[in-house]
């Protein structure tokens, strides 16, 4: 607060709020929006409450019996709804501090501990679930970052030195970029596992992923018996009757059937995702790289959700907040004329966004491939508006605004690359 007042007096409020934001840096106002949006993501992820009474296959923290003995406590205590409600109250208070940007060295560990503990209990049932890891890892990384910065600031204060820019309050670059780094690392880990498990043959064998598409559709059907996962068609009867199994025979999803018959196209499709995950470490280079990789990753998740009925909403949301970072782009455009789109770019962006949105809404009920691509084109822009339970009209207006901004951000990023070359 002191530094904000001092900078406001010296440079004015606009500069104090927008000043730190640049191509590779996140300033005060951008930091606030990153924390606000991520706090909503974290809170949403805590709505999934698995009240398992035991931890038969302990993993992570649950697998440290000495720790629990020392604490005189058990991780299964989280399955008590009253205690969980208490935990959520602590998290709520800590998230308020987190959003405001005060007391982070204490607030972040509280949020991290509760988030990691409840998901550890969930994963200690003998069945690992990978939908929340990125949020936990992001929280853990942010805890390490704020602890490091607190130590560095303390050291500089004790030595009575001038605070360098990298450690100055209001500089949220490290929180932003290290969260991108840990998210990128988790995608690269997945690539390493693919190469290891397949002995380097993943790309060659990737057409067999089509069989997994059939499996995930079947699993989704048996989760809820929702006929949409078996194309709404009653079980097919084979030429030779087999009463023991006929009732379970369902049509093959069109996408799996098509990919199975076009293995080379399957290799190109799955290969694109593979290389995107492999090269995602480049997202830490600057805001443009983060945007391009962020759009790619969100589209990758959208494609997987479409093909396999397998979604990772919290991965998408984390990538949407930190990689795509629409708020950061608005601030950069407002602050720096070099990053401001021209009128032509704005006009082109809004026309393109409006055309895409109209086409999407017109084909929303369709199951055609073009309708899926139009849906996919809105996926990155719909992530942040999707965090809120907005009425349809407000939601689609927000999506249109986000889409316009993202198209303009891509345009100015591409323009900047050519400008630099010249």
């Amino acid at each position, binding site marked *: 607060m002191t530094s904000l007042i001092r900078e406001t007096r010296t440079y004015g409020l606009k500069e104090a709020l927008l000043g730190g934001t640049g191509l*590779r840096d996140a300033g005060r106002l951008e930091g606030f929006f990153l924390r606000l949006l991520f706090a909503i993501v974290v809170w949403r992820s805590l709505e999934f409450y*698995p*009240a398992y*009474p035991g931890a038969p*296959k302990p*993993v*992570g*923290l649950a697998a440290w019996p000495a720790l629990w003995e020392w604490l005189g406590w058990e991780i299964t205590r989280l399955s008590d709804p009253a205690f969980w409600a208490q935990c959520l109250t602590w998290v709520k208070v800590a998230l308020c501090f987190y959003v405001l940007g005060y007391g982070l060295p204490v607030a972040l560990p509280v949020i991290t501990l509760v988030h*990691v503990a409840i*998901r*550890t209990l969930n*994963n200690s*049932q*003998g*069945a*690992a*679930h990978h939908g929340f*890891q990125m949020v*936990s*890892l992001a929280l853990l990384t942010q805890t390490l970052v704020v602890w490091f910065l607190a130590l560095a600031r303390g050291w500089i204060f004790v030595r009575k030195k001038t605070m360098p820019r990298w450690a100055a309050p209001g500089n949220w670059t490290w929180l932003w970029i*290290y969260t991108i*780094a*840990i998210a*990128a*690392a*988790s995608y690269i*880990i997945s690539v*390493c*596992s*693919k190469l290891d*498990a*397949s002995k380097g043959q*993943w790309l060659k*064998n*990737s057409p*067999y*992923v*089509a*069989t*997994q598409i*059939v*499996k995930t559709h*079947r*699993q*989704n059907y*048996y*989760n*809820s*018996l929702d006929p949409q996962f078996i194309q709404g068609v009653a079980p097919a009867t084979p030429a030779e009757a087999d009463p*023991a*199994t006929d*009732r*379970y*025979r369902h049509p*093959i999803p069109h996408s*799996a*059937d098509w990919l*199975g018959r076009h293995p080379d196209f399957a290799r190109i499709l799955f290969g694109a995702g593979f290389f995107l995950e492999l090269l995602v*470490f480049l997202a*830490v280079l600057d805001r443009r790289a983060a945007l391009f990789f962020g759009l790619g990753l969100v589209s990758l998740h959208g494609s997987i959700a479409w093909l396999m009925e397998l979604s990772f909403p919290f991965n998408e949301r984390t990538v949407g907040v930190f990689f795509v970072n629409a708020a950061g782009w608005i601030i950069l455009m407002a602050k720096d004329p070099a990053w401001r789109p021209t009128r032509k770019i704005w006009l082109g962006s809004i026309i393109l966004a409006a055309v895409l949105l109209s086409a999407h809404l017109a084909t929303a009920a369709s199951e055609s491939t073009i309708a899926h691509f139009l849906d996919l084109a809105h996926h990155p822009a719909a992530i942040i508006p999707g965090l809120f339970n907005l009425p349809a009209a407000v939601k689609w207006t927000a999506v249109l605004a986000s889409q316009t901004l993202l198209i303009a951000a891509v345009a100015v990023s591409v323009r900047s690359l050519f400008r630099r070359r010249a």
Partner: protein
Amino acid sequence: MPALTPSALLPAARRLWLAGGRYFWLAAFMGAAIQFSLKTGEHYPFSHFPMYGNPNPRPVDYYFLTDAEGQPLPVVELTGDTAPKLKKRLNTELNEWGFANDTRVKSEIPLDIRAGITKAILDDTVAQSKHRGTPLPDQVQLWRGEIHVGEDGYHETFVKEAEN
């Protein structure tokens, strides 16, 4: 052309060091996180994210629950868990038995042992459904579906793994 004296080079070197330092630490952090996760494996929040890591032509299996007549039951609504979770639980038990008994291939696990493990998983699932107040029917069956892929496309087979 300016002279390449040490004092002229110093600011440039400093700039390079500052920019390089940022990426060096980011790369070191990512490298450490990757190495640590791959070594640690499945220990939340760390994971080696093994999903769909080894696509191959072998049959792919999945599990589901039915009533005594073999009519499918909605797994999530009645147990709170998903059909993939049924499979993961069963695989965890089978793998544990396999590691303890030096049997690395699940199909080599003796049938009576496998039957005991699948029955235990089914019993646990039934108990869990009662605990959450959405009890499964009195008689439940656990089925395994297998998807085979060949020159002529896909076909499926089914095996009743356990019943209570």
